[in-house]
Every structure is written in C-alpha cells, then in structure tokens.
C-alpha cells in the first residue's frame, strides 16, 4: 500500500468517525434545545451533566458547538481524502481545540459535577480516536496542493 493510499484511508476513517460524533452531538443538542435536560425522568444519566451551568456558553448548548466542530472535522477530512491537502491545515487546529475541550469536560464531570453522561463520554472517546488517527496520518510530501 502506498503512503498516499494509506493517508486517504485514514482520512476516510476520520470522516466516518466524525459522522458518529456528529450524530452523538446532534442528539445531545436536541436534548438541550428541547428542554429535556432541565428535567428529571427523560435521561437520568445525563440531566446532571447537561443540565449544569457548564453545559452552556451563554444560551448556546456546548453540544451544539460540538456538533458544528464534528461537522467541520467531517467536511475537512472528506476534502483531505479527495486530495485537498490544504484541508489538513484546517483539520489539525479544530481537532486540537476539540481535544482540549474534551479534557476540560472530562475534568468537569469527574471533579466538579461528580457525574458522568455516557453520551458525553462517547463524544470524548470519538475525539480521542480522531486525534489519534490524525497523528497517524503520514506527513504529506511537498507538492502543489489543490
């Protein structure tokens, strides 16, 4: 397998994993926007985390920002898989920011809220997987990028 092909496969995997993250974040966004997280009885695992003050920035649920970030990762990974090498330059800072945000939210769940939301943990796992896959992508050769 050539390096270029391996790189393409990794970007495709990143795009597929990002779709899973997008689905998870969309579900959490809908829960937050529908008001389900301000109640008990809907999702007992998540209300404490998603109903907390840490789950919003102003009036915007962080899950919605997460959904947007996953969509960006999906889009740039798709373009990278199709040979748009410049897409990687966008992909790396976005995934880096997501990685740091994930560390913060894990800290909030473990030490501030003492409660875990399984959908948030799934999102954390997906972000770590994407970060790992991106690290595994071989650096591109110097050539004219599209």
């Amino acid at each position, binding site marked *: 397998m050539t390096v270029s092909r391996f790189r393409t496969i990794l970007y495709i995997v990143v795009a597929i994993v990002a779709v899973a993250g997008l*689905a998870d974040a969309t579900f959490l966004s809908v829960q937050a926007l529908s008001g389900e997280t*301000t*109640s*008990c*009885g*809907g999702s*007992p695992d998540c209300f404490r985390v998603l*109903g907390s003050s840490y789950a919003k920035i102003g009036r915007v649920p962080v899950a919605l920002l997460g959904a947007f970030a996953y969509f960006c990762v999906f889009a740039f990974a798709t373009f990278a898989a199709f040979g*748009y090498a410049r897409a990687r330059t966008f992909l790396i800072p976005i995934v880096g920011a997501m990685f740091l945000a994930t560390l913060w939210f894990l800290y909030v769940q473990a030490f501030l809220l003492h409660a875990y939301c399984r959908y948030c943990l799934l999102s954390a796992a997906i972000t770590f997987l994407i970060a790992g896959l991106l690290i595994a992508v071989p650096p591109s050769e110097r050539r004219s990028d599209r």
Partner: protein
Amino acid sequence: MKRYLPFLIVIGVALGTFGSGAMLYRVKHSQLQAKPEATALSANSGSEPTHIRGNPEAPVTLEEYGDFQCPPCGSFAAFAEELLKEYDSRLRIVFRHFPLAVHEHAREASLAAEAAGLQGRFWEMYDVLYREQATWSKAPNVRELFESYAGTIGLNVDQFRKDMDGEQAKARIDSDFARAESLGIKVTPSLYINGQPLDAKDKNPEGVRAAINAALAGKPQA
C-alpha cells in the same frame, strides 16, 4: 464529477443531520409536552391542592409536580422562593408529588414531607429536603436523616415516624401521582400556570416569569 463529489457528500451529510435533528426535536418536544389541565378529564382525582404557598386567593397559580430527589426540582424550589417575593400576593405555588422510580429515595422523601405536613410543617420540610438533597440522596439510611430533619424543624419525631408509615401520607402521594399520570406527566419538575402546561423549553427563569406575566395580563400562553 469527482471534483464535485466531496461537496455533494458534505452537503448531503449536513442536510441529513439537520433533517434528523429537526425530526428528533419534534418527537422529544411532543413527548415532553404534558396535557393542559383543563382538558384532562381524568385528572380530577386530587384536584384540590393540599400544599399551597403564597396568597391562597392569588390570581396566578403555579403548580409544580416535583420529585424531592430531582436536582432540577431543587433548583426550581430556590427560584420559586424568589418568585413568591417578586410577585407577592399575585402568585400562589402549589406542590404535588411525582416521585420518579429512578430516584431511590424520592418516595420516602415525599412521605417525610407529607408526615411533616400532618403536623402543619410541610413547607419547612420541603425546604430542608431540597436544601439537603445532595446529602440524603446518597445516604444509605435516609430515615435517620429525615427524622433528624423533623427534629430540627420542631416536629414531634415519634408522631412523624408513625405518620411516615401511615396511610394518610401514602394516600396523598398516590393521589398526586395518579393525577400527574392522567395529565401525561413524565418528567419533573412539570409546571402548570393557571392550568396551562409550561413548555419544556420555557422551564427557565425568563420563561417562567414571561408565563406568569402573561397570565397576570390575562393573555393565553403560547
């Protein structure tokens, strides 16, 4: 064609995400929306509220179906205090029990509140239960804690103990629970303002105030 393929894929996923998110929102929204009290014919059981805070003749009634072990209910209880001060004689708050099965000690906490109510101290126990929610929610033996709270608020603890096991307290809770179920309530806190359910997305200070103001102005809620 290959040139446009990534654009088509990205646009397709964006539309798919937006569409499925919108559908899920509609489903969740309809699930969370309880029936208006006025149209729930089967909700007549327990229609006379037992626990009223504020002016009993107030023009606006805020009815809460709550669970003492539910953290959002605890937050609402603190906010309800503010509302009573803010609206003074124009608002009364009614509490009804809806202890959820997912909360291990919720029913016992309701029994404690009702037992305190039999000695005329329902709201004092209500305040203590919500204030100390984080403590007793994780305690292995909540009875001991509830009895200590009963002593703190000046109840006859022996009587309190008997009342917690008595039929009267159980009957009150069962009556509220049956009423909640007949209204299609599934989550706590579920709020009604003058018999109209408050939308789940309005269960925040701004939303509650807007609904109370609308009720005071005589406008039907959206």
